[in-house]
């Protein structure tokens, strides 16, 4: 038993036949589409490394089946900036040394994008709360918070 699904990932349309119902969205992105920027750190919904945007909302791709996203629009880390032209948040991560091994980073960026779009993030505590579902073992979070703070400032400067 398998299904055909259609998705738009990072602006590109994919029609994929033969998708097994039990195939996780994370495995679909990584193995079927070859988008290995999305990382898998726990496969039980705790670490947040696998976070992607589905129709604009952040979700844990290890907790969803691929067939659930049929007809959806997905953004993964590959859909943000490029090495030559990082997007605002990526650039601030680099500026503030918000990554070390880089394994949690795609999830942090996708969660960060979601937070920046949806919440005012008035205090750094708000940022920390917003990140509480994303684990990083390298950075101690301080520079990640600084990067998101700085991206928030830059966005509001642009908006005004």
């Amino acid at each position: 038993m398998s299904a055909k699904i259609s998705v738009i990932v990072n602006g590109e349309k994919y029609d994929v036949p033969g998708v097994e119902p039990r195939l996780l969205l994370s495995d679909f992105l990584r193995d079927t589409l070859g988008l290995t920027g999305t990382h898998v750190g726990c496969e039980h919904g705790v670490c947040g490394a696998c976070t992607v945007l589905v129709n604009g909302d952040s979700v844990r791709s290890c907790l969803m089946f691929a067939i659930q996203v049929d007809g959806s629009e997905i953004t993964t880390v590959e859909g943000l900036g490029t090495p030559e032209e990082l997007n605002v948040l990526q650039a601030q991560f680099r500026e503030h040394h918000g990554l070390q091994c880089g394994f949690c980073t795609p999830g942090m960026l996708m969660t960060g994008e979601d937070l920046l779009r949806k919440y005012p993030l008035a205090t750094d505590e708000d940022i920390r709360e917003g990140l509480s579902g994303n684990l990083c073992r390298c950075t101690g979070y301080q520079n990640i918070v600084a990067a998101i703070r700085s991206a928030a400032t830059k966005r509001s400067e642009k908006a005004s």
Partner: protein
Amino acid sequence: MNSDRPAQPLDVLRPRNVGAPIRRTEDPRLLTGRGEYSADRKPDRPLHLAFLRSSQAHARITRIDTAAALASPGVVEVLTAESIVKDFKPVIPFSRMTNYYATPILPLAAGKVRYVGEAVAAVIATSRYLAEDALELIEIDYEPLGAVSRPEFAVTEGAPLLHDAAGTNVLVAREFKKGDVASDSKAAAVRVGGRFEVTRKAPLAMEPRSYTVEYEKRRDAITLYTSSNIPGIVRDAISESLDLPGHRLRVVAPDVGGSFGSKGSLYPEEILICIAARRLRRSLKWTADRLEDISSSSQAFAEIVDAEMGFDANGIAISLQADVIGDVGAYSIYPWTCGLEPVQVVSFLPGPYKIASYRGAVRGVATCKPPTGPYRGVGRPISTFVTERLMDLGAKALGIDPLEIRRRNLVRPEEFPYRIASGIIWDRTGFVECLDAAAETAGYRELRSLQADARKQGRLFGIGIASYAELTGIGSRIAVAPGMPINTGSETAKITIDSTGAITAAFGVASHGQGLETTLAQIVADDLGARFEDVRVIQGDSDEVPMSTGSYASRSAVLGGGAAKHACRILSEKIKRVASHLLEANQDDIEVFGGKAIVLGTDRAVTFRQIAKAVYSDMKTLPVKAREELSATYTYDPINGTTAAATHIAAVEVDPATCFVRIVKYVVAEDCGRIINPLIVDGQVHGGVAQGIGAALFEELVYDDDGQLLSASLIDYVIPSAPEVPNMEVVHVESESGVEGGFRGMGEGGTIGAPAAIANAIADALSPLGIEVSLLPMTPERIFRLMEQAKLKSRGKSR
């Protein structure tokens, strides 16, 4: 350097990159999903491995039936210990230590299992899903042999033996002694002590262990892409085990998602996947799921320490004694042995202090758990916790301020080099300077007055200090693990300018988040006179240098940096020789910087590209003899290595209702020698402290008496998330070390200081209730119990 003004010597001598907060070379790829971790490799039609792991803690395997699994869809092969017996030689974690038993390392359990999670059989199938389906069809019969879970039980008479051939569960025993502890202790004005314990931890890198092996038909060769921080050691060990020469076995650590020690030993799965690739002549992939990773990667700490310190009336520590039991798990790991962690506890127990007499005895005891191995700090988080608790207990008993008692006991600037009572020699480092800088930055006096106010209001506010020293970048005179025969004391840099003028610097180190591609390029750029962006650093690839080990023990900046500096010196001389021909100038008048060789005081210059062209491509310009290949290799050995030190100060408040510990202030003053990149140094400190906070407050691998792991998910094994980690202030006391470049290692220190500082702060906060802290982690539940007991006690007294 764009102006046309003639170059002056000052421009040349000023280092431009070392010391600067340069943004990392690694970041653009890692920020855009273009990094490549082992699991991201996409070999041609790979097969997938899945492991059947033991559900038993200690049992004889009486039958394995793989027939049904083999018939399952997509399954290509099922391997057991029996079926691979001719494919490898066991790897032995050898050591010259006396009283040590080396347990052989096997890819799959043979005969019996010794912990829950040990790999027993491997299914190879066309997809991971199908391989996992087939696992359920394997039948195994076990005959239980009795679980050994608690180390105190393991050493009792009649406890089941994990390794019959060892004749005991004590896999390693050592004693360090100096002076007459017994009589010094008797003479002491006060003696403080107790039983201290740090429970078992998981290093828990966010990337689970992951291996991809790629088979190359043409040469019957394999390349193992491994999430390892010791690819060189893995290459050499597997080469020997599989009898495969190094030029047909390449081991690469590509981007690695953190290690902290958990990826710093040879793993059975690494051997097995190579065996499978050779048998099937196919590429294969395996990535641990989180449960597998927690229950089969090397674990950490797990020591019980009975310790006592004696002080004279002035607060000078005069004696220290300790008996340590290390719960080392079921096997000794390769190459570090099971002695690494517990022995390090006793060798570092005197810390940065001048304690006259010492006795430290340690036993590493086998239990039915995965082996302990290196974890950020190795041994020293525990030794520092114990010694710093004792310092505070002594201060309290004598009515001396905790800051002051440390100042009286630290090795002073004029006393270096200083040999502490366990035999370790500290070279000139800012011990007292760190203490003072931390106290000043934290506003120690103000914190004390805040505390006095808080206490008046009945709030539980405490301040904790921890000072420590560590050996980093150690050379060949000291083995990283006791008695270990592998050379961990040197590191090679191979720097080449090719025919296009491009610069490639290859090292044997293996970054797993530390940003070595950036920091080593900073050093090369300065010392070679190149532009930072023109230097490409290659590391973590066994094909790039003849011998390598990897990154561990805070060695890479010191050893890799030292090797780079030497190699640059040789290469820069070659560049000058060529340039002197091309520029018709005296070699001594030529300086190299910014990717050019320049005649000082003139505007005559040649670029690296022009130089490369003249050497390699052009048959006319240079005399044959002057066409020296533009490359240099240097293997650097700092012989002894160097000390790094720090003082941490934490202020905490304990909520009496929830028993949660809130960290209100955290300051680190550290001496890591000359700083290569301040962004990276601070990042290492932040991350290390966060791990220390986890060890102090949350993290605990709980095994029940049957040897079953009760905290195998990230829900039960709690690591700090963003709200639990405070902002940290980091100050640097930058005293240059005696090694090449003046660097000191600094990757581990944060984790060494934080548990002790937080433990002392909690003890200080709870001292009005008469509570002492002797066990970590101090979870809310433990604090609650201690507070309840204290209440009962005080009620009993008042009655």
